[in-house]
């Protein structure tokens, strides 16, 4: 297979996201000096709940991704490993914990640490809101233990698995309704907790305003993603990965709606002019698994080089305010609960498969890449089932390689190349059989 140096045609509006992200982290470092309380949070986006009370937050995964995107992740990971955190542990967690260790224990003389990695403010309290990953609460508990002299207040929103018991499915059934009520109740309690932390009554009016912004942003994103059913696709999974920040830890902030509107406008323009996400789309791929943040550009160009558009993925398309229609800004808690409960990571396998297969049909997917992130066992737990059933039920081939979110030591580039090439060769053979 020829390998000319083709590059991905990334969305220009991605620069707006970069600007928002950079500003956010710069503001965060100054948060304590500005008199703001700082919350550490992991899992689902709860930023608006904190912003409503004029607080700052560090989203653990977002932080890890940011550090990795700046290629500053190695030193915190080394420091964490020195303390005894095994390399097989979630790399987001190891990255953040290494940075917290820099803040609490000082930077060792032999480590050259990047700016953002050593300037993390310490938490005033912690909120966990994790779907589908038991490591999330364990991670936050490990952070809490890093401050033995202080008792850091901690609130845990339990997002139960939506397993699919007794016929319950995506946004339907008794299990679904009971669990939505359960999460809604906890979100209310979380608001009271945040109010207590601030020493002021909780500002539900401001939460409503922020959730209006979230709804707009989520709606625009969903519309823009659905436009990518067009052939060739005007944007790719790698663009949508970059656009996670406005619907994740930047949820509700100024500029997020404008950035998403710009993305949608750019996509509509590309469809009009026939401009595509890669120079020559021959294959349409679904990315199954989490993103590898320190390899985003590298991976985008790799697939472009193979004439394969990675059109959609479970990570981008089945989470992060994926159901904006159910959000009622005036009374947002139930809508938030629905989005959080139905986040892809917390769905039982039959429901996950149902939704994933819908996406494969919508986006005319030829093949699936299963990214087995070494330190994210939550994402990878159903990969083999998916591979088998994609083939049996949809006649869609898949390939698999190991990687990781923010620890690039788990990559073997030649294995990645070989696996992708094998998939594309099988897709090409299938196309030829269909033509013949």
């Amino acid at each position, binding site marked *: 297979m020829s390998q000319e140096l083709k590059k991905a045609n990334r969305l220009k509006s991605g620069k707006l996201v970069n600007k928002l992200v950079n500003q956010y982290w710069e503001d965060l470092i100054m948060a304590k000096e500005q008199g703001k309380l700082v919350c550490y949070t992991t899992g689902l986006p709860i930023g608006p709940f904190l912003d409503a009370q004029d607080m700052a937050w560090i989203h653990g995964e977002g932080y890890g991704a940011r550090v990795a995107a700046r290629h500053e992740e190695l030193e915190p990971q080394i420091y964490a490993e020195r303390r005894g955190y095994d390399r097989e542990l979630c790399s987001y967690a190891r990255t953040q914990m290494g940075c917290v260790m820099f803040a609490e224990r000082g930077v060792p003389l032999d480590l050259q640490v990047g700016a953002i990695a050593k300037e993390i403010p310490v938490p005033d309290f912690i909120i966990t809101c994790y779907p*589908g990953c*038991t490591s999330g*609460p364990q991670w936050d508990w490990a952070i809490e233990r890093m401050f033995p002299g202080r008792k850091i207040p901690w609130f845990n929103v339990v997002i139960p698995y939506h397993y699919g018991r007794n016929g319950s499915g995506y946004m339907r059934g008794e299990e679904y309704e009971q669990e939505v009520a359960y999460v809604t109740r906890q979100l209310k309690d979380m608001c009271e907790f945040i109010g207590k932390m601030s020493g002021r009554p909780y500002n539900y009016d401001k939460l409503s305003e922020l959730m209006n912004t979230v709804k707009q942003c989520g709606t625009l994103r969903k519309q823009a993603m659905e436009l990518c059913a067009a052939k060739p696709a005007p944007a790719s999974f790698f663009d949508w990965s970059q656009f996670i920040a406005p619907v994740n830890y930047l949820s509700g902030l100024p500029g997020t709606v404008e950035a998403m509107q710009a993305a949608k406008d750019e996509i509509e323009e590309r469809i009009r002019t026939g401009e595509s996400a890669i120079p020559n789309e021959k294959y349409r791929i679904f990315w199954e698994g989490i993103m590898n943040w320190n390899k985003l550009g590298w991976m985008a160009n790799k697939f472009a080089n193979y004439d394969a558009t990675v059109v959609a993925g479970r990570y981008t398309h089945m989470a992060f305010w994926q159901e904006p229609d159910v959000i009622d800004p005036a009374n947002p808690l139930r809508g938030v609960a629905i989005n959080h409960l139905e986040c892809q990571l917390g769905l039982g396998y039959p429901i996950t498969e149902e939704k994933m297969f819908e996406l494969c049909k919508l986006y005319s997917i030829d093949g699936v890449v299963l990214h087995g992130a070494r330190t994210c*066992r*939550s994402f990878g737990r159903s990969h083999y*089932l998916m591979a088998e059933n994609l083939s049996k039920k949809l006649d869609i081939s898949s390939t698999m390689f190991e990687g990781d979110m923010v620890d690039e030591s788990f990559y073997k580039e030649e294995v990645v190349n070989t696996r992708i090439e094998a998939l594309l060769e099988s897709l090409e053979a299938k196309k030829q059989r269909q033509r013949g």
Partner: protein
Amino acid sequence: MSNKYEEIMSRITEITDQPYETAKRKKEEKGQKTIGYFAMHFPEELIHASGLYPVLLQESNDPVTSGHAYYYSFFCGPSRSLVDQAAKEELNFLDAIIVGDYCIQEIGAGEVLGEKLPKVKNLFFRLPVGNMPWTGDDIVEGLKELKRDIESITGKTITDNDIKRSFKIYNKNRQLLREIYEIRNKTPEVISSKDLVRIIQSSMVMLKEENNILLAELVEALKTKAVPKKTGPKVFLSGSLCGAPKFDILSIIENAGAVVVGDDLFHGWRYISSDIDESIKDPLKAISEYYIRRNKDVPCPIRVDPDTKWEQYLVDRVKELGADQLIILVAKYCEAHMFFYPDIKEAVEKAGIPHLQIQIEHEIVSLEAVKTRVEAFLEMTEIAAAK
């Protein structure tokens, strides 16, 4: 007199070497349906009260082969082993399996079993982690849902009296096992670690009523058993293992001269430390209270309760039992334990307790390397003590 002990252990060994045979025989002979469930936090009493045969699914000693067609190799041994057992059709005898939402790797394994065993009902137990003020009530809600789903298998209501009868039997079982531990605490050499694990395992796979009879005999036999003389360093074994610790590792530790004086293993003290409070009127509330209290008695990293301090528990237990050293068994890829190990390491180092971490893999690649490390560890501490 020791022959009586050996005779009972021979029966126990036969049961635990083929852990599902007892359940299979009951099914063939009496048509008793069987529910398999995953470690470590599971209301077995609820299954027992339903009249179904509860089997705590065990990590097999067989290498994972067929299972790797369904689960990545970088998942923990117990979860891969269960997937492997399903792939090899060794779990087809089950009528239902139950998995709980306290460990993502178990959940994943449960989902694979759900797909690979379509004739086996796939149930789910919602057990919230954390210690919010409402956690206890939330656990009760999870128990109600589970009870409803178990009842759908039998077609019969599980009454409060049924559950309370099961409490008595299970509490009796734990008391008998604790009696064995008390005998061991006084004279650690009287029973090997391997035998102790097998005894606990027998409780996990037998009907508790029948196991109680066996254990009562065993307690009597232990009281009169000849005790071999051993004067090696006293070791406390710690781990958050869902599967039984490898017998090879236990043998290496004891053959190197160590005397194991205590543990917090699931196939050990963790399984039996606490009883359900039979005075609590509502049995589901009693089970919920038991989960929260049991975790305070022997902290589990999966339960995520910041009011518990596993690291301090270990320091206190090691001192209480007069252990000289601590050996920590970490199941490879066990995230809960990997998050906790650095805190334990710092706490025991501060307390002056020598410790060794051994990573347990399902397929142990090099026992010689483990042997060398254990022997060196025990020798180092002996030399330091002699100075």
